């Protein structure tokens, strides 16, 4: 299990390949990658700045992965989340999990993302041609998390 919070970009292909090759018993590797969109609610986005709470962020992500491990038989899980100012098309987050079969891997990956979006202390500030503003949390993200309870 690895948790990384970093400014620098990551090589999604290399990360997933490494996870896969480390686990010969895993029949399934499922991953999610989030990227900066160039349009949000009809506004052009020039950049996205991610702030976080150093220390709590890592603990929170580790706790989320631990919960996923208790619910599904996972060989491994990886979470990489970037911070700082990112342009459109930049990768923001990678979640990848390895399990024996796809059902558990799909579910665990989605669970980790749903909890990450509602519990891990990250905040996004969006820069647009009309100025910068903090994004509001969305009800649908909370609903996505709550369905796992």
């Amino acid at each position, binding site marked *: 299990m690895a948790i990384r919070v970093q400014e620098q970009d990551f090589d999604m292909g290399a990360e997933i390949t490494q996870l896969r090759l480390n686990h010969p018993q895993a029949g399934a590797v499922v991953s999610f990658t*989030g990227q900066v969109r160039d349009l949000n609610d009809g506004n052009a986005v020039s950049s996205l700045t*991610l*702030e*976080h*709470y150093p*220390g*709590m962020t890592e*603990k*929170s992500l580790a706790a989320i992965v631990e919960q996923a491990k208790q619910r599904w038989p996972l060989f491994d899980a990886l979470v990489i*989340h970037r911070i700082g100012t990112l342009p459109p098309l930049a990768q*923001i*987050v990678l979640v990848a999990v390895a399990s024996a079969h796809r059902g558990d891997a799909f579910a665990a990956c989605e669970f980790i*993302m749903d909890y*990450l*979006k*509602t*519990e*891990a*202390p*990250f*905040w*996004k*500030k969006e820069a647009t041609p009309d100025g910068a503003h*903090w*994004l*509001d*949390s969305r009800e649908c993200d909370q609903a996505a998390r709550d369905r796992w309870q």
Partner: protein
Amino acid sequence: MIQLLYFARLREALGTEGESLSWPGPDSVSALKKLLAARGGAWQEQFADNSRLRAAVNQQLVADSAVVQQGDEVAFFPPVTGG
């Protein structure tokens, strides 16, 4: 003393990212919010009747009924928006 931290929109509204505060507690997070709201201005706006404000004590999300002890690190922030 307790260590206070403010993040994101809240940090900008208050104009500070944190402070050390003399704390008469143990007492609840809601008591701490009342103490901060009593400073008036932006503090009143951000800490009084703000149901969207989240709190963490020693880096764990907590409810307003949670107890804040001497030496604790208490963070306040808006709902999270990562991912």
